[in-house]
């Protein structure tokens, strides 16, 4: 599409993100949420909605939703009413989903992302509400029957609905990255879009630049990566502009994204939309989220990326870029923060994280949790370099790989194994030996007169002074030389 045409239009985008929560049990029963178990094993009569069963609130779900609300500057709703969303589908055991309608647990929040101009941009969060997932219908190749796995039925979700504040696909990408970062920092969702634990629908419309009234929006579903959300938005913007340029009108539709073609196809018209007949769930009492409870949840919250970013740039005086990279993932940030508890060479620590450590992880496609060395060991390496015991090259190219091979060793031991400490060590040892020899002129004279057995006494003194750390072979050699020259 010609950029002149494209530039006439402004896209308006809102995102709905479903995040599957990392609770051990389901939203309204004590059934396990374990992923990857055999079909229809994480079940009870409650998940299956057998007659006579009732839901029970899992408090962890509430706490996780509140955490996300606090992390996105939301107001937390005190009086929550659960609602039923009614529709028929084979993977929906009760014929309705327990969700929230009129009283979402979090409202009126925002997050800040960097737009293409590098400026902070605020994107509003309309609401976050709690709900339960459905099971999975499985259509096996070559079979006419549909099989249903209810393991996922009742697994807790939060839905995070943004304001239509997003203006292009890059902002959408930045927004999603930030949401993913937050849920991971909060440890409430693993953020894995490919496995479906984070799902995103996009509401997209276009209007002429300067217009005040939004165009007709189209909802796009079924994008299983951030990249695909971007592609879907790009495609949809162009598709809609083309229709408008040709004098057409946009249909209010739900469209499906096809990752193979990068395009969207109509799924259903909004006119035939389901009437979900929401009404208050009579099987659950209203949920009160008190100030005291919120305070307890706050206490339990980890540091958020914004906080760490600020700490890294202001307290540690790291460059913006470093802080950005280090806070990308919670585990990296926390690892770095811990290195900085053992050394105050913050920039050096940042270089180690972004250099040798990241290269090693990337090369083996490992996660920082699987990194064999401790922050303390890395701090030890940094200190050795800073004190001039080894140079950075030797530390990163020789000692670091050696430590990775023998992660039980200290950096000093590793350096010692590689004889990289020798020069500084011998100097220190020589000083001790010289002092020992100088403090015993009488014995030196006896030694020199031929009483060779006194060597043992001198060695004992040296070993005492070095607290046994001296290499006996080297110490012996140096001692002989020193005595001879005395």
């Amino acid at each position: 599409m010609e950029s002149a045409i494209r530039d006439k239009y402004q896209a308006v985008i809102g995102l709905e993100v479903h995040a599957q929560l990392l609770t051990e049990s389901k939203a309204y029963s004590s059934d396990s949420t374990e992923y990857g178990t055999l079909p229809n094993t994480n079940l009870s009569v409650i998940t299956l909605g057998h007659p006579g069963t009732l839901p029970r609130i899992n408090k962890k779900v509430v706490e996780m939703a509140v955490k996300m609300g606090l992390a996105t500057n939301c107001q937390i709703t005190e009086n929550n009413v659960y609602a039923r969303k009614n529709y028929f589908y084979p993977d929906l055991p009760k014929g309705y989903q327990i969700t929230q309608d009129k009283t979402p647990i979090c409202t009126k929040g925002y997050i800040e992302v960097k737009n293409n101009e590098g400026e902070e941009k605020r994107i509003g969060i309309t609401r976050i509400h709690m709900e339960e997932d459905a099971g999975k219908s499985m259509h096996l190749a070559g079979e006419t029957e549909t099989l249903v796995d209810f393991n996922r039925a009742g697994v807790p979700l939060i839905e995070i609905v943004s304001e239509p504040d997003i203006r292009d696909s890059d902002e959408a990408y930045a927004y999603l990255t930030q949401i993913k970062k937050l849920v991971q920092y909060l440890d409430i969702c693993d953020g894995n879009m490919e496995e479906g634990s984070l799902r995103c629908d996009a509401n997209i419309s276009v209007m002429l630049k300067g217009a005040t009234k939004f165009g007709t929006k189209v909802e796009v579903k079924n994008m299983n990566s951030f990249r695909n959300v971007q592609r879907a938005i790009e495609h949809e913007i162009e598709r809609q502009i083309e229709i408008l340029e040709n004098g057409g009108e946009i249909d209010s539709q739900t469209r499906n994204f096809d990752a193979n073609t990068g395009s969207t196809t109509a799924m259903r018209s909004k006119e035939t939309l389901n009437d979900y007949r929401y009404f208050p769930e009579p099987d659950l009492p209203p949920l009160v989220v008190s100030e005291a409870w919120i305070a307890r949840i706050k206490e339990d919250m980890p540091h958020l990326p914004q906080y760490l970013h600020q700490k890294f740039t202001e307290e540690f005086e790291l460059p913006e870029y470093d802080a950005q990279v280090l806070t990308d993932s919670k585990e990296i940030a926390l690892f770095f923060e811990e290195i900085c508890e053992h050394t105050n060479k913050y920039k050096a620590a940042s270089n180690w994280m972004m250099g040798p450590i990241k290269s090693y992880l990337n090369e083996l496609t490992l996660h920082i949790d699987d990194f064999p060395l401790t922050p303390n060991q890395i701090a030890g390496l940094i200190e050795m370099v800073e004190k001039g015991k080894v140079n950075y090259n030797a530390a990163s190219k020789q000692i670091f790989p050696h430590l990775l091979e023998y992660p039980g060793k200290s950096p000093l031991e590793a350096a010692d194994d590689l004889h990289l400490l020798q020069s500084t060590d011998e100097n220190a040892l020589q000083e001790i030996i010289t002092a020992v020899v100088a403090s015993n002129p009488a014995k030196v004279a006896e030694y020199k007169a031929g009483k060779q057995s006194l060597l043992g006494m001198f060695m004992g003194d040296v070993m005492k002074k070095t607290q046994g750390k001296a290499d006996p072979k080297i110490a012996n050699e140096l001692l002989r030389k020193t005595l001879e020259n005395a």
Partner: protein
Amino acid sequence: MRYRSLRAIRTDIAAGNTSCSDLVRFYLQNIQDNAHLNAFLEVFADEALTQAEAVDAKIRNGSAGKLAGMVIGLKDVLAYKDHTLQSSSQILNGFKSLFTGTAVQRLLNEDAIIIGRQNCDEFAMGASNENSSFGNVLNAADNSKVPGGSSGGSAVAVQADLCFASIGSDTGGSVRQPAAFCGVVGLKPTYSRISRYGLVAYASSFDQIGTLTHSVEDAALLLEVMAGADEFDSTASQREVPAYSQHLEVSGKKKIGYIKDTLESPGLQPEVKAAMENAIEALKAEGHTVEAVDFPYLAYMVPTYYILTTAEASSNLSRFDGVKYGHRSEQATDLNSLYKKSRAEGFGEEVQRRIMLGTFVLSASYYDAYYTKAQKVRRLIKEKTDELLSRFDFLILPTAPTTAFSIGENAKDPLAMYLADIFTVQASLAGVPAISVPAGTDATNLPIGLQLIGRSFEEQELFAFSKYLTDNILVST
């Protein structure tokens, strides 16, 4: 063997005159002899005998529970592990419950003997038991009359000594009205007093498990056993459960209100009216204060009740879709026809009518006009009822406008049938406890029932006063 209280049973067992096994055999024989009443859908004969032997042994060694000697029938809406649970509906054909509900488990824990599963209106929707897919239940007082509903089988079973007591469910009068029609005591406790875990839902914000017994004292004992907090029902009340059956004496004079319009109602059968008037006079004669009060929402009670209960029912019954269990149409060709045909074949006419009505009142275009408005009216009715109960100890009113009507009489006119609920829905809308007690018979010897409504969670006072009413007032009228 026609025992009227557990106390009498226990006395006779202690004296060696009878045993649980004897009682079970007696009831089994009666069930067989009265099969035409159609009160039971299934009889657990062998199980009940086995249970009886076990309880007899416990009685002998002094370790028996509070309900030892009680032979109980369960309305077919109560989950009992490994037993069929069908709500008198074809849609649950072949369904067995995988768990025992809380109330039933508590009965078993106290050594109640469960003798069988009782007929009722399909999904507890009805006032005559004519909506069961397993046929009508006949009133034992007159086989041409309905037993009331929806707990019709449960009421007749007690009436005809097919079991000692029944556990039913009451959403808008489903225990109280059949109790009145069959001349037994029917209790609907305060909403949330008994856990609903294991009760097939009709309208969740109204449903309560209730009891059908010969005596108030046994209703009190059963409530005492079944009530109380339950981790499986988060709407169940956390309040402590008093030992209701131990404190049934009335102290002092009471203030009782009656709604003037209930006595002016044109549909009120003269003998029912007379029973009310006699009771009022007798109470006054005993020094109690009885006053007429206005209740401005009488005309709104039945519509409000039907809008809200059908709304909830339309959602509660969505799970019966032919996918997971129960009836699945053999004619289904795709997913939509599987739903439509399974549900059309599996649900009876009245259930379908209520599902459609409920779906309608919840639909986006009519939601505020019906559902939202009905919720507001419910609140007004509750507030007004609570206000009356703050001025009066109890409200007294007929349980039903008439005695048992003839089978088929109202069957073609749903509205006429719904109006039979006029006096019972108030306590259901307000969530307060209510009890129906026998108050004589009409000219054709059909039982009349009077209803007392009490304050929320004050079942203790309600039991004591209704026992007093039964023992001292109604006998003389």
